[in-house]
């Protein structure tokens, strides 16, 4: 049973975030309240770089106001790994996202998401129950593509989930991410994957 709590939040911080989501700026990945510096990124040999894109299917609300997805926030739920609240970095005008590379063995669980419609920013609390298509385990070191996911009620049931039915291509997500990872150990694997997909 997936229930969501939606509430309206106001304030300068939100307006600033909404503005960032809509502009061409990049938002770096966060752990808790702190942005993760590139120097703290795990290595491709022992950690996993998770990336993809998400939108929320807002149905009829799109008819009267502009809908802007902001972010999905994850919790690390494997008790054997370091606890962390993970906010994705947004790239490509907010179309794609990545998480700061995680140690292999980490498990992520989406537990809230934010989006704005018109001038209102919404927060959907997803809870810690159930496993969404986006809740994955970093089982292997290297790149892990989640897909272009849409949070929706796909078949008219009450169950909402993230389905890989979005329109952002992996290649575009990688190209948008590349500048963020320039000069890090991830640059090479990202470039390799871009080459592979460009063939």
């Amino acid at each position, binding site marked *: *049973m*997936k*229930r*969501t*709590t*939606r*509430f*309206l*939040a106001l*304030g300068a*911080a*939100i307006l600033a975030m909404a503005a960032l989501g809509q502009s061409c700026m990049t938002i770096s990945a966060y752990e808790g*309240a702190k942005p993760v510096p590139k120097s703290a990124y795990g290595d491709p040999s022992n950690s996993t770089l998770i990336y993809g894109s998400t939108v929320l299917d807002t149905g009829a609300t799109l008819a009267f106001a502009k809908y802007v997805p902001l972010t999905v926030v994850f*919790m690390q*739920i*494997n*008790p054997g790994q370091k*606890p962390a*609240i993970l906010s994705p970095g947004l790239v490509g005008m907010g179309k794609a996202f990545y998480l700061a590379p995680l140690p292999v063995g980490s*498990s992520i*669980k989406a*537990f*809230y998401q934010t989006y704005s419609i018109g001038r209102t920013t919404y*927060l959907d*609390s997803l*809870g*810690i*129950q*159930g*496993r969404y298509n986006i*809740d994955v385990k970093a089982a292997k070191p290297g790149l892990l593509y989640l897909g272009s996911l849409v949070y929706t*009620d796909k078949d008219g049931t*009450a169950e*909402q989930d993230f389905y890989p039915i979005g329109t952002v291509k992996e290649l575009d997500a990688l190209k948008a991410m590349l500048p963020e990872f320039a000069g890090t150990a991830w640059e090479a694997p990202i470039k390799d994957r871009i080459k592979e997909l460009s063939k």
Partner: protein
Amino acid sequence: MSMKKPLSALLAGLLVLAAASAEPKVSKPRSSEVVIVFRVEVKPDVDRDFYSNYASFTSPWVSAALPRGLRKGELPADSLSFVWFEDGASMGTRAYLGPAAGLQMVKVGIPKNRTIDIASLRYFLYDNSYLYFDLPVLRKIVVPEGANYVYIGTFTYTLADEYFRISDITLSDEYDGAQAQVAKVYGESARLLRVNLIKLDPDQDK
């Protein structure tokens, strides 16, 4: 249909909680009210040590006030809320119950047809509104004429995995202990009646 509750409902719940904790004495149910009595267990134990790392999480947009009566560094107990419907109604009511441990006594108004649909319980680790999982009930009760205290039992939920999925629900009877506690809270004249839980139509959209 996913349930969307506005912040105002949450705040109202908190206000009710604040009012309740300021007033330790409970008022007896009126003739139009019934106290539903039950207990909830969750097995196996949640790795609370691990989740304690998230106990004080709040969204960047919600101020992190400590719950009443807690000192810095202390963590709140797990809590429950309760979702019920007047039979046939499309809108449910969510009641915040406070600590999840121990006997629950929920006072609700008796609908005209005396039938109450109990949809689910929501379990909050460390009383944190983000750290919740749902415990389905999907049963209805019919409040007998003249009854103001009804006993439905102890629900034991078995969690299947780290995603808090539920693999089993069992119902057991701890009536004697419950009757004693109800008498302690509401007075010796409070008579607790066992009622049957009747399966709700699973296709009913709740």
